[in-house]
């Protein structure tokens, strides 16, 4: 094997074997980890170009959920008198919209990401999984900004608790000490409590559920562009199947746990539980079902994606 006439390079530890795809192509997560810099750069690129040449820029991340919240509050809160577990409807729907928007925006971006980057796919090799992952991750920035907006809502509802007068309100909003105590009031009213520490876990679940569905959709979209047409429709339908406008507690008893099969349902309910202390339906079993659904979709999606990956460059 070794030959002293070639001293300049040591025998390499890198061996790449190229073979026809197997039925169960290994996921090769190690390679994904090796290329984490690329994942980071892709995500960064998406964030950078997302609001290029717009006037409002990142404000769009706030405007979208905020306007949706207003419309929902009017239509479902005011007109339809949807129950909201005793929480002011705007606050209720906004907290639900946060993970939902992250999920649906992520899905929108990730399911088309392979087709959008067809040029790259045809000309260069990198783990294709990076594309849908970064597409969803880049939505994290939007999420964090709209999440910050939630703080403003909190203050508003704290100030609007029945026993505060108008004069005091005006004074209160200019006083940082009050803003701080307002949070405490909200905490008291809607029990943010210690549940909030579960937020990162819930966010991770939101990410995984978006990824799980995206793996299927993005890979399918390469061969069947029907996905692009179906997606908007699918998301609109899914919104009604997700407890964003209504609480799970409004569902008939028998349907409550069944609704957990929707991977994002558990996350949305979990968010309310973590942020507002809603406890009419303990999200435990619901979250468990949703998480299981997510994991099943995620693992099967990852294997499907890896298998389909072999033909991406030929079909895209």
């Amino acid at each position, binding site marked *: 094997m070794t030959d002293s006439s070639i001293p300049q*390079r040591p*025998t390499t530890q890198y061996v790449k074997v190229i073979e026809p795809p197997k039925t169960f192509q290994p996921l090769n997560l190690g390679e994904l980890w090796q290329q984490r810099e690329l994942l980071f750069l892709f995500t960064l690129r998406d964030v950078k170009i997302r609001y290029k040449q717009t006037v409002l820029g990142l404000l769009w991340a706030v405007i979208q959920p905020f306007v949706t919240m207003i419309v929902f509050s009017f239509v479902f809160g005011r007109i339809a008198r949807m129950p909201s577990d005793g929480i002011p409807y705007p606050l209720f729907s906004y907290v639900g919209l946060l993970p939902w928007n992250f999920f649906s925006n992520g899905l929108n971006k990730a399911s088309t990401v392979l087709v959008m980057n067809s040029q790259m796919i045809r*000309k260069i090799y990198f783990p294709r999984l990076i594309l849908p992952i970064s597409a969803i991750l880049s939505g994290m920035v939007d999420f964090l900004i709209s999440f910050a907006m939630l703080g403003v809502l909190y203050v508003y509802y704290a100030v609007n608790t029945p026993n505060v007068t108008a004069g005091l309100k005006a004074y209160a909003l200019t006083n940082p000490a009050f803003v701080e105590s307002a949070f405490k009031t909200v905490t008291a009213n809607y029990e943010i409590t210690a549940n909030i520490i579960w937020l990162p876990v819930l966010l991770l679940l939101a990410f995984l559920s978006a990824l799980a569905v995206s793996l299927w959709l993005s890979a399918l979209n390469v061969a069947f562009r029907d996905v692009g047409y179906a997606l908007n429709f699918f998301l609109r339908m899914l919104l009604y199947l997700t407890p964003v406008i209504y609480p799970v507690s409004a569902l008939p008893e028998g349907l409550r746990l069944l609704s957990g099969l929707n991977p994002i349902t558990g996350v949305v309910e979990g968010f309310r539980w973590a942020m507002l202390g809603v406890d009419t339906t303990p999200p435990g079993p619901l979250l468990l079902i949703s998480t299981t659904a997510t994991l099943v979709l995620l693992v099967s999606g990852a294997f499907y994606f890896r298998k389909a990956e*072999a033909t991406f460059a030929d079909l895209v």
Partner: protein
Amino acid sequence: MGENAIEVHGLGKKFYIGQAEKETDVLKTVMNVVTGPFRRMASLMRNQLPEAADVEFWAMRDVSFEVKRGEVFGVIGRNGAGKSTLLKTLTGISAPSEGVARIYGRIGSLLEVGTGFHPELTGRENVFMNGTLLGMKTAEIRKHFDEIVAFSGVEQFIDTPVKRFSSGMQVRLAFSVAAHLDPEVLLVDEVLSVGDAEFRRRSMGKMQEVTGQGRTVLLVSHNMPSIQNLCNRVMLMDAGRVALIDEPAKAINEYLKRTHSAPTDASVDLRQHEGRIDGSTPTLTRIRILNAAGEEESALPVGGTVKFEVTLDVGEEVIRNAWLVIAVTDTDDVRVTTLRTLNQTAQTLTLQGEQKYVCTWPDCNLAPGEYFLEIRLMTSMKNGKLLDAISRAIAFEVFPSDYFGAGRGMRKGNGLIWVKAQWEFDPTTLAIS
């Protein structure tokens, strides 16, 4: 010989190509659109990709070869010969249908310059993005960043979005990133032909530098001078299969032979030749074009050696004071030069029976293209001077080569001959660049 860097065994790639349906009239077209969804869903149920027809097409098959560590291996072939498919398979972009390939070493691939460049990002951001895509670590890019930018010559604009760049600037920046790749095995496709002349010269220099470092390179190109110049061995692909693997000159020669629609015969029987000029006596019997080794070969590189072998038969009679003329003309019937025994040897020929005359042209510096020979046999005896004459008796081909040793040849418009001229440069040119 060292160890192998690339081993390929029986690699093949199959595609299914759809047969276009003939849509004869409007009604049929509309009906197709209407029934299409049902037909396609039906084929899905049968577990087939819709539209994917049953016609198999092997873009590449039975491809086997080995590349030694440190070798520069060229792949040539006409369009659709399977070169790109091979490269895409080796890089992992698309999976093979059969066979196996092993690549030992850190792989860098370069199928196109500027892949992943985003118009909205600045030059700097794109350098990092593109470099990482090509397999560099961020730390490596940071280390070479100044070099990369200096090589591209776009320093001033590095923080400007690349959509404001001219296309030339984009290409230069992209190539600079690629040129600073440091893999053990480099897979390259046709990237030397980008940018303006000056930049191409520098890229070529960089490429030579890269290949000189003991790195293994697999280079797919249509640019014969660069193949000839850079490669140790060359594989010729034809219709998805390996036609031959040989030293560059031979492979290129074979390639050029195959790419010509009507391969020119290196040996032509002249007895019944339709180019015979009226009034001649059929005396010339055969013309052969030979290479330096004396083998029949109707194509040669610029600067190669070519031999014209004329066979004639005058019968029993002795003909004195004869001379043989071979006129070389190009496709526009412009006479390029004349080879004449009388003037070039100061001797006359004495003809009797069957004879063979060979004219050797060493260092044939004709510009690439197709040329014809007009052959005349003359004598000052007899009444007329002309014994036999045939115009366009045979054709031969001159193909580009690295005649000047500079890595690039000249274009057709540059004249009919290539001259190895000596240049003396003003010393400041080196000082400045």
